[in-house]
């Protein structure tokens, strides 16, 4: 390549070659970064699917095994953790959808006294997320007798400022004529919401739903604080206890447990990659 560049007589040819060399460097850099970004996951797969003596030794011919997964599954109540995470994530999502839809509808289509101040107060939660206020929220939960319950994990997140904001923006773009038409047909405010606004905001619900599910599936600090038994702990907290150095479990089993914890979300992401990326984009630029 560079030989051609040296012998080429015309200037454009030199430019073109230099450009393509720079281009190759760039592609190489982009790939290298992609490899680095994937490396932790590649390593987790390596270690989880090989016997523990290969956990830190990289040999192409190392035998494959599923024993680590079997061990991890038997050493910690992963089935229970899955169930807890699933119940927590779905209950949060369902209540979020209902509460945020109602509040967003109020902000988008009703003129009531104090609306702007109320909206400003809602947005405060974008800055001060519940995990910042763990001390006081723990106190409140113990007064409500909700410590160590799935409801206790979810409650602080159920009225989400982010969801209200996102849905309000979407509702505002829906033409008022549709609402007027529904009213002429005799629909009340709740029917209008249900028949006009909600169906038209479907992409926003999907986007917000994916962001919410991945956030709460991965959330750690608040669930750690508020749970203290197997029957409520979500996967993240269970995994942290399972992999604590005190528990003396070896590398391969820890990485197998780690993959178990991330598997559902990871598989969903790989299958619906485009949808995920677009949802995060959609949620971010509103």
């Amino acid at each position: 390549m560079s030989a051609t560049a040296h012998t080429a007589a015309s200037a454009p040819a030199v430019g073109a070659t230099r450009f393509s060399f720079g281009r190759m460097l760039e592609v190489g850099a982009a790939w290298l970064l992609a490899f680095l970004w994937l490396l932790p996951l590649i390593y987790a797969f390596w270690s989880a699917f090989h016997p523990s003596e290969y956990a830190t030794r990289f040999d192409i011919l190392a035998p494959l095994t599923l024993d680590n997964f079997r061990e991890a599954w038997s050493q910690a109540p992963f089935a229970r953790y899955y169930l807890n995470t699933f119940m927590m994530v779905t209950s949060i999502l369902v209540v979020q959808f209902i509460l945020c839809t109602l509040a967003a509808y109020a902000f988008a289509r009703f003129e009531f006294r104090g609306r702007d101040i109320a909206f400003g107060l809602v947005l405060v939660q974008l800055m001060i997320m519940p995990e910042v206020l763990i001390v006081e929220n723990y106190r409140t939960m113990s007064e409500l007798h909700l410590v160590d319950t799935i409801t206790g994990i979810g409650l602080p997140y159920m009225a989400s400022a982010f969801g209200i904001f996102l849905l309000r923006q979407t509702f505002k773009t829906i033409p008022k004529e549709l609402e007027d038409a529904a009213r002429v047909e005799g629909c009340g405010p709740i029917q209008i919401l249900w028949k006009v606004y909600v169906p038209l905001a479907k992409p926003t619900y999907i986007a917000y739903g994916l962001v919410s599910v991945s956030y709460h599936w991965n959330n750690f600090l608040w669930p750690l604080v508020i749970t203290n038994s197997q029957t409520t702990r979500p996967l993240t907290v269970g995994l942290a206890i399972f992999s604590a150095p005190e528990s003396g479990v070896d590398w391969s089993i820890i990485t197998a447990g780690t993959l178990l914890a991330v598997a559902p979300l990871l598989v969903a992401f790989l299958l619906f990659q485009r949808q995920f990326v677009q949802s995060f984009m959609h949620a971010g630029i509103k």
Partner: protein
Amino acid sequence: MTSARNIKNQVYGWLLLTPAAILLVTFTHYPAIATLAQSFFSTGTVTRPSKFIGLDNYRSMLEDEVFWQVLENNIWYAVGTIPISIAIALLMAVWVNEKLPLRGLVRMSYFTPTILPMIAVANIWLFFYTPEIGLLDQVGALFGAPSHNWLGDTDTVLGCIIAITIWKEAGFFMIFYLAALQTLPPELEEAAKLEGASRWTFFRRVTFPLLMPTTLFVLINAVINSFKLVDQLFILTKGGPDNASSLLLYYIYENAFSFFDQNYASTLTVVLLLALAVIAIGQFVILDKRIHYR
């Protein structure tokens, strides 16, 4: 008719808002105010109930060396993570936005850390940092570097925490840049080509300024993250060695739930809330300016 309609609007508006408002007030506004109030009281025990002590908690905070260290760590954490993760995010977005072999795979690799729980990836990174058998040391050994206890050394531990955070959030920020890049009209680049501008000039003079609103949005998120992302500490270091990697929110957690000094934790939370308030005000000022320039 109009006034009946108006009253109906008032009632419906508030009725629709009430369920969300109750939860928001209970778990955001009330605890924020209660935190401030509690910071003026001592932590109660069985024998000594909590009592008003004025600014004593603040006095002991100012005398608490660990607090100052944690604050300093948090500033370095912010300085280390914010610019680098934004720069990498921008680079990723530019790469993934143009024609690139295996583009789908590359984009997926960049984005994957976003959907993995921090607590799980910290487990994997722990292996990278392990002395001797860890990946970092194994690669280092190929180049004759001596083994190093990355997480056990007060000089390197915060850098390790910063690295994992950058890895975790860069792909997330990339998404916003990618969305913004896709809205830029392609004619701009064609015009620049006709003018003979190099790609770098084009990026510096055209793309980057046009991405400014996105950069601000990402910047605010990155600043908030630098106070909020502490999950990795639970697995990697527990704030050690010698509090060299402890961050403000982690120290709050420790005080409240390991040392059981809730009211001191509240005092520390007030500092965190102040920091977030400053960010919020800064955001308004910057956004205001942007509107003036337009």
